């Protein structure tokens, strides 16, 4: 099946323009909702029935999340998470620059459905030049057309959308850290409960969704919920963007139905670079467990299949590694990231991520011992499950899976003080 949602406009001449978006049926769903005064609950119900799952990493059912918002009539907020910082992931930036109106329409529908009169799109700081500019331009036009703002198309519905800019912090992608950051503080994740749907931005009920999630909403609303549900497979309904990177001939963003075999995605990406041998794949952004190449070739790109191999679909960042890859170096690089990005509040994460990184660096410098490998495993397990947010887990899981799948390569490195592949 060759369905496109978020990437629909990508190949057009002027992908970000309103005209292009309208050509694809843009804003039809939104206009219908406000003219017909569609009940909020029926929108939530429709999204629920479509089986749309969050594309930000955790894969939580979007409609279900929306339904947690208290019904009473008070200030609520919607936040679109365009912080995209998970290594291996680069899909939201393309939606932002090639299909910004789908995000705006998605934000409008979601705000309407949860009763929010203000919505923020939080873009990572590094998007300040191209993505923010394009999105802001689209937003300006949407305001001019009165699709956003006060008394939208004389429907007496008012929703304001603002774009916000981060200033360099991966952790702000975590939803509660994002709320802290919007409130002008250090991006430190909050303890849950209370969940944002009850007590979020400025203490008010708030829904946070990923850019791709929200950009998917308009087209789902335009069609019947079953339309989306029928794409995909099992509990992995619908479609997802995958960002393929690493040792590939044609790395890129590919929007494919969930359940598509990995082989097909590999093929879309032009196959392994220089016809190399597939050694390993990180299927969902750098924080998910690594999967051996031969296992990966048996899997399909859906939540169940990937988790059956002990990993996760995550954000859809598929990092492909060929036979020339030194797994010790890759793990050290991944550890450096979580060490650099820990917000620093939880003891295990603050102290543990540095410890992991420094030990791995030691090993790379030929100063490691076999017992270090056990210590690595132990520290990772001490971090896991013991932190406020999932960054701790994200730092721990790669360590455990790399050691598990490529133990011999680590052993070789400490023993021979050099990489097995070089």
């Amino acid at each position: 099946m060759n369905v496109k949602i978020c990437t629909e406009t990508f190949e057009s001449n002027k992908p970000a323009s309103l005209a292009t978006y309208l050509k694809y049926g843009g804003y039809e769903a939104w206009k219908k909702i406000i003219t017909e005064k569609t009940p909020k609950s029926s929108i939530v119900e429709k999204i629920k029935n479509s089986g749309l799952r969050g594309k930000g990493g955790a894969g939580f059912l979007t409609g279900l999340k929306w339904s947690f918002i208290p019904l009473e009539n008070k200030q609520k907020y919607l936040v679109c998470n365009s912080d995209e910082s998970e290594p291996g992931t680069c899909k939201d930036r393309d939606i932002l620059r090639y299909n910004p109106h789908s995000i705006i329409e998605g934000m409008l529908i979601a705000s309407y459905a949860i009763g929010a009169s203000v919505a923020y799109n939080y873009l990572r700081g590094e998007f300040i030049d191209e993505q923010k500019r394009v999105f802001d331009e689209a937003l300006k036009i949407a305001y001019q057309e009165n699709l956003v703002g006060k008394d939208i198309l004389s429907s007496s519905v008012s929703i304001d959308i603002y774009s916000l800019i981060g200033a360099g912090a991966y952790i702000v992608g975590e939803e509660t850290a994002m709320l802290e950051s919007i409130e002008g503080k250090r991006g430190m994740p909050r303890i849950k409960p209370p969940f944002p749907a009850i007590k979020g931005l400025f203490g008010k009920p708030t829904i946070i969704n990923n850019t791709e999630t929200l950009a998917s909403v308009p087209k789902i609303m335009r069609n019947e919920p079953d339309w989306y549900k029928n794409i995909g497979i099992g509990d992995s309904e619908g479609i997802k963007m995958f960002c393929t990177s690493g040792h590939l001939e044609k790395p890129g963003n590919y929007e494919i139905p969930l359940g598509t075999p990995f082989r097909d995605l590999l093929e879309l990406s032009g196959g392994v670079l220089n016809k190399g041998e597939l050694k390993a794949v990180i299927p969902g952004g750098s924080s998910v467990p690594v999967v051996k190449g031969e296992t990966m070739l048996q899997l399909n790109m859906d939540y169940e299949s990937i988790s059956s191999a002990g990993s996760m679909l995550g954000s859809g960042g598929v990092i492909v590694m060929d036979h020339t890859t030194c797994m010790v170096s890759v793990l050290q690089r991944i550890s450096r990231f979580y060490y650099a990005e820990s917000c620093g509040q939880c003891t295990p994460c603050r102290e543990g991520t540095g410890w992991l990184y420094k030990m791995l660096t030691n090993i790379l410098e030929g100063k490691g011992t076999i017992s270090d490998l056990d210590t690595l495993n132990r520290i990772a397990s001490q971090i896991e499950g013991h932190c406020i947010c999932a960054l701790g887990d994200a730092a721990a899981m790669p360590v455990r899976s790399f050691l598990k799948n490529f133990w011999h390569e680590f052993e070789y490195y400490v023993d021979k003080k050099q990489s097995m592949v070089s």
Partner: protein
Amino acid sequence: MKIYINNIEYDANPDETIIQVADRNNIKIPRFCYHKHLSVVASCRMCLVEIEGVKFAQPACSTPIKEDMRISTKSSKTKEAQKSTMEFLLINHPLDCPICDQAGECELQDVSLKHGDDHSKYLEFKRVVVDKDISPLISTEMTRCIHCSRCVRFGEEVAGNKELGLINRGEFTEIRAFIEDGVSSELSGNMIDLCPVGALNNKLYSYKARTWDLKQHPIISPHDCIGSNIFYHVYNNEIVRAIPKENSDINQTWLSDRDRFGYQGIYSKDRCYVSKHRKNKTLERVDSQDIIKKVNNAINSSLDKNTSSKIGSFISAQSTSEEMFLFQNLLRKLGIKNIDHRTNERDFDYQDTYPLMPSLGCNINDLSEYDNIILIGVNIKTEYPILTVRLNESVKQDTKIYSYHYFNMDEDFPVEKKFVMNNTDLLSLFQEHTLESCRNKKNLLVIGPNITYFSNQSVFLQALDKFAKNINSQIGYLTDFCNSTSGWILGNVPHRTIGGVKLDNPGLNATEMLENDLSTLIFYNLDPENDFHNSSALINSLQKSECNIFFTSYLTPIIEKYADYIVPISTYAESDGSFINIEGRFQSFNKVITPNSNVIDGWRALNELNILNNHQAYTIESIRSELSSTLSKIDFTSKILIDKKKYELDKSTKVHKNSLRHIYSTDQIVRRAKSLNETIQANNKSVYVSRDIFDDSENKKILKVVENNRVFKIDNFQIRDDLPSRTIVYSSSFNNKFTESKSTFVSLKK
């Protein structure tokens, strides 16, 4: 709701967290970031406990309980989790316990003994943090910081003044102030207590003793009328530090810096350690055994020569209730009526209509029940720092706070509206002013001590009474000394005796005593230089009188110049004593340290005089029982009684001259506390002048003020745009002849 901890059933409230239930039942769970008066951040991960059916151990401090939850604080999963947190904490923590002041009371040390591993597997480099000076009161060793953020949350949530923050992130997170010496909160010392390790330390206590060698003594704060409960830690008969003694009705777990570091004043070089008597114009040393007899002879011979109305007596309201009781008891029995503790005041017209004693009119705990609290002429931040905590609590519970002052004051709690006007404008305002938001609400109007210094305080009090009636408000007072309440209720005023019983023939008040050429003057616990509204009038009286008797803990130049008898008496910590706080709470304490052997217990000196005159002898116990029977009969709600007299509003005033109570000059002891006087606030000693009366464009550098026909030249002054018109304000610690008289009305000479 029921939950199970270690298989034992406990009752719990649905909104509680695990740690709250455990703490209530004395079940120990280690913690660093959690503190019952601070918000929960659950970041240290020390309190991880196993919950049945949950995969990973969860933080007890943030996990809400559920019906039938089963928690184990001892299981191996719990122990493993806690041990691993400990291991993480120790990798970057220096192992310098032998040189750390916190050793012995370090929460990290305690916990690591119980929960840590005996050796660390961590062989990488430890983090080192470069220290910067943050305050003269707190020393830092930031490498020891474990990032629990208690100090940061304290500043933000409790003190209402965020000065420390977390900077950088991840492993490089540090606690820092914006600039060097950037911690100036009047409550800063609490961060020392809150710090679970030796990162924030008491600078005064640095290397003075090891914690396990200390003796702990409870005492009550002598620095303000709130009556905070303190523990003094004593080593070799020396107070080496103070920490809060928890009292949920008063200071909770906090102390103001003044209460924490003020004791330094006891060790001032001004201390008076010898009894002296003036003979042939020079002061001679007298045996401490003989001084009381000599003083007794002097008083009695004065009584023989003159009438008792020629003798005047002054006592500081920082004296203990026992001293105040004996002081007036002695003098009244000798027939002396000229007694006053209000040495800082100047207008006493109001005294007959004044309540029995000043009182807040409610309990400190009840402040948050008021919808509106209206502050009149008081700066809570510098005068009653500990109340800042309470007012922050109140504001969180929707109390609105208003402030009326002649100076634009910073507060560390949100103020709904500030009214800054000069005295005349304030007065006119109170005559007809109604605060709209106070209608049909529960209101408390709080009158601060600055009002009592006005030369027209009676007019003010009457206007305030009217204002209070207009807005339907209760009236409460805050006094300048810790024991002013005793001053009133124990008969240390000329017109009332003990219990506030009215006298038909009142004695002279403080001002009158100085104006009436008395022949004998008795001073108890007072600095002539600082504790009188008009020290030149005082010097004048001292010169004229035949005999000046000083009971004092400190020697000052004026005392040395004019005293005929000097009795070196104990300070509050060197004797048993009691203070009555502004709620009317009577709090007693016992002697903490033994003074120099020549120093005489204040109350014993007075008791001795009683005995020498064949009056009843007292013990501490018998005084206290007499006091409590007096107090039990008193109703502690304050009201200004309406005075039939109608005061005229004097609008002719050219310039208003007002003093500001200087936080670290408010009493004899704190004035001499060295470290407090090195803080940023202590430097705040300028004279402020409003722009309309002195425009610097005139290019003049000297201000000339005429007061009582004398011309004062002031060169150290600042022009402030935020002062109300025609106003000069100076700090009460400003050292210049000009400040001697606390009059309100002066004029300017161009």
